């Protein structure tokens, strides 16, 4: 099994590859609009792929397991959705509208399609992840309501989070919240028993952070949130992650965006300024992650850690001697 050093080395490589890729895309002319969005997503996918290859943890092709479908189908689908959303939005994604005043607006009349594309992509993402699993078979699982709820919530939350890109900071806070969620998932999913899922979450966190550090923030709020939803859904529906933990891992980007929106509605009041501030929005995102990590550690300590470290090792008593016991 991959150890923490392998995780760390692969994550550093993923960060570096994502950063280099997004900068290469920018130098190649993908500085705005859908090319910039595609470039940021490609950087994340490249970073994750290289990190996974270095850690020896890339699932085989064709992808028959959920994490393989996430990397090979789900996230490319999310990238296409974000690129389409950038086309339909007309305004180059990730940059302020006023900065592009005077430019020809492509597809401006199709703005209504922007949230529709993201909603549809969220539903497709969940469907792709569950493909050919017991969850989609008749009588397969009892939690069908949870599956529907997860898909609907993802479909509603994705456009909400992605719209943060229109803020003055270009959606950086939403991206940082997604990175925090992915980093927390990288710890919570292995503690629930699925080590490989944690590796992929760590690589996604590093790659999204690398893309952001390289200046590729176009479409990254939506794409980062899709990555969070994808890996958490894999951890929940295929690993041992609890429903509450999955919800708490997905909600931080939504909370970060919601805090900003509430702050906007409060106008120039002190409370409004506070809620719009980056530290407040990040704090709102991190609180649920602290809760989920504390609960995950408690559950891990109660079950898996005791399997790995038998109680006898914690005792100070000397090891029993068979000869001594037999001579009594």
């Amino acid at each position: 099994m991959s150890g923490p050093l392998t995780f760390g080395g692969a994550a550093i490589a993923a960060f570096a590859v994502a950063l280099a890729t997004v900068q290469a895309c920018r130098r190649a002319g993908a500085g705005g609009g859908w090319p910039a969005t595609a470039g940021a997503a490609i950087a994340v996918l490249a970073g994750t792929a290289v990190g996974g290859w270095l850690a020896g943890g890339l699932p085989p092709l064709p992808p028959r397991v959920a994490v393989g479908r996430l990397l090979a189908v789900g996230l490319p689908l999310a990238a296409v959705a974000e690129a389409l959303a950038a086309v339909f939005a007309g305004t180059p994604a990730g940059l302020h509208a006023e900065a592009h005043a005077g430019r020809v607006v492509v597809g401006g009349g199709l703005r209504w399609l922007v949230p529709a594309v993201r909603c549809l992509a969220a539903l497709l993402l969940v469907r792709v992840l569950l493909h050919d699993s017991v969850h989609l078979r008749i009588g397969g699982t009892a939690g069908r309501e949870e599956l529907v709820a997860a898909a609907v919530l993802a479909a509603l939350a994705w456009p909400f989070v992605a719209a943060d890109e229109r803020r003055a900071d270009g959606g950086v806070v939403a991206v940082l919240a997604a990175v925090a969620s992915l980093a927390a998932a990288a710890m919570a999913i292995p503690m629930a028993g699925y080590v490989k899922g944690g590796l992929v979450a760590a690589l996604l966190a590093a790659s999204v952070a690398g893309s952001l550090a390289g200046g590729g923030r176009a479409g990254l709020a939506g794409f980062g949130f899709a990555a969070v939803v994808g890996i958490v859904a894999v951890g929940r529906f295929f690993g041992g992650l609890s429903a509450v933990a999955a919800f708490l891992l997905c909600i931080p980007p939504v909370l970060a965006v919601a805090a900003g929106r509430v702050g906007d509605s409060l106008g120039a009041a002190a409370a409004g300024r506070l809620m719009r501030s980056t530290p407040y929005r990040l704090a709102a995102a991190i609180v649920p992650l602290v809760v989920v990590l504390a609960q995950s550690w408690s559950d891990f300590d109660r079950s898996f850690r005791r399997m790995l470290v038998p109680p006898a090792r914690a005792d100070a008593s000397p090891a029993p001697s068979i000869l001594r016991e037999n001579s009594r």
Partner: protein
Amino acid sequence: MRRAVFACAAVLLAIPAFAADEYAYDGVHSSVGFKARFLDISWIHGRFNDVSGKFILDRDDPSKSSFTLSIKVDSVDTANAARDEHLRQPDYFDSKQFPTIEFKSTKVKGVSGGYEVTGDFTMHGVTKPVTFMFLGGREITAMGKKRVGFATELKLKRSDFNFDKTAIGNIGDEAVITIDCAGQRD
């Protein structure tokens, strides 16, 4: 006359059905177990508690016999609940994606003391042909049913079935599967 022809045809068509005996897997008196090396110093033993199957034995023409087994992966039991939970997850069996382990014979040959069985073994979404000696097959009548028993042991490599390579390390690649099963019919 026509009625007599139909009657003869019906009897002739019915003959093959009586030539082979069909036994249902007797879950109470059977076990499917496995063991794998731990750190190459000891063995971890486990079993699957939910198994079903069917044996069709044609004693006159063993090549017409067949064996099928279906094992529910979620029923894995290594006497450690936390480990069982880990084994069900995608690092190992991935029971939500691949809920069953299946065996279906494709060729059966009668040998001294039992049958040489070749078939498709499907685990973790990968199907591989395997051949093993299924020893047993003597029918007795007990507790109001006709019963047969078979036993075999076969070795499989988890890496042949696309198990996560990074998870093959502490637990050895090779697993020894032990099948001791009984079949019953009225």
